[in-house]
């Protein structure tokens, strides 16, 4: 269900470039369900998203997965921090995500790096702003909802897997 929410909201908000709740949700998943389950969510989301967007190529899927995985790890590491700190690192996660795509686009699609970087600036600013704003307002409420909805796994349940 968490994957479904992640994928559906991203598809619904495709009309507005870089405005999405993806980073907010992944940070919340990192803070609540942990890295292992969060990685599964990210993997399924990357596959489905690229199938829908007709971009099922490793040159897009790999940087997307890496960028979102870094975001997930940030969410996990900052799970006990205040939302202001999480928001700052959420913004940085957006830049890291953009950096992965920059590398992939420049190396595999032979795009000129400087013009691409300059053209990408407004979208990166929007992405960072969106991440910070959504995390500031929605991080705590969503984390509370997920924690109340999904019981934490006990150690003996993990051992039986």
């Amino acid at each position, binding site marked *: 269900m968490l994957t479904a929410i992640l994928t559906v909201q991203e598809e619904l908000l495709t009309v507005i470039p870089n405005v999405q709740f993806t980073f907010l949700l992944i940070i919340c998943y990192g803070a609540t369900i942990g890295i292992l389950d969060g990685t599964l969510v990210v993997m399924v989301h990357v596959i489905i998203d690229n199938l829908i967007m007709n971009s099922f190529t490793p040159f897009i899927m790999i940087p997307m997965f890496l960028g979102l995985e870094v975001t997930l790890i940030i969410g996990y590491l900052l799970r006990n921090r205040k939302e202001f700190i999480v928001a700052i690192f959420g913004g940085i996660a957006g830049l890291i995500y953009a950096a992965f795509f920059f590398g992939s686009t420049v190396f595999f699609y032979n795009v000129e790096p400087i013009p691409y970087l300059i*053209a990408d600036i407004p979208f990166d600013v*929007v992405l960072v*702003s969106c991440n*910070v*704003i959504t995390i500031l*307002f929605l991080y705590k409420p969503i984390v509370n909802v997920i924690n109340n909805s999904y019981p934490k796994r006990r150690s003996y349940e993990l051992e039986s897997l």
Partner: protein
Amino acid sequence: MKKLIIKIIISLILIGISIGTFIIVNNINNKRENEANINICLYDINDELVSSKDIVAQKDDKLLDILRNNYTIRTSESTYGAIIYDIDEIKTDFKNTYIAIYVDDKYSNVGISGIKIYDGMKISFKEMRVYYS
């Protein structure tokens, strides 16, 4: 309450920065789309190249203004538009010599006031002798 106010202020600042960035980049792109790189060559009476300059102008700039900004020129006005007599070292009097205008190596059918700027154009000003029949 204090936290909420701080969050709102931060959000408004970020929204302002995002909108401002889009406006600035949009203006830069519009200016770049409107840019025209032109090459202006001057030839003397012996058809030897005197100077060649690459100039970045805007597509709606007037050629006369571009010349005024980049060369020392002498012109006069006529019913057909401006007539150019001197450009830097090339000096004519319209009795013995005159300046012919070539656009992309083709003799221009219009005077200097009628030439429209576009990206990649080459304008040559050649000192020519006046022949009387």
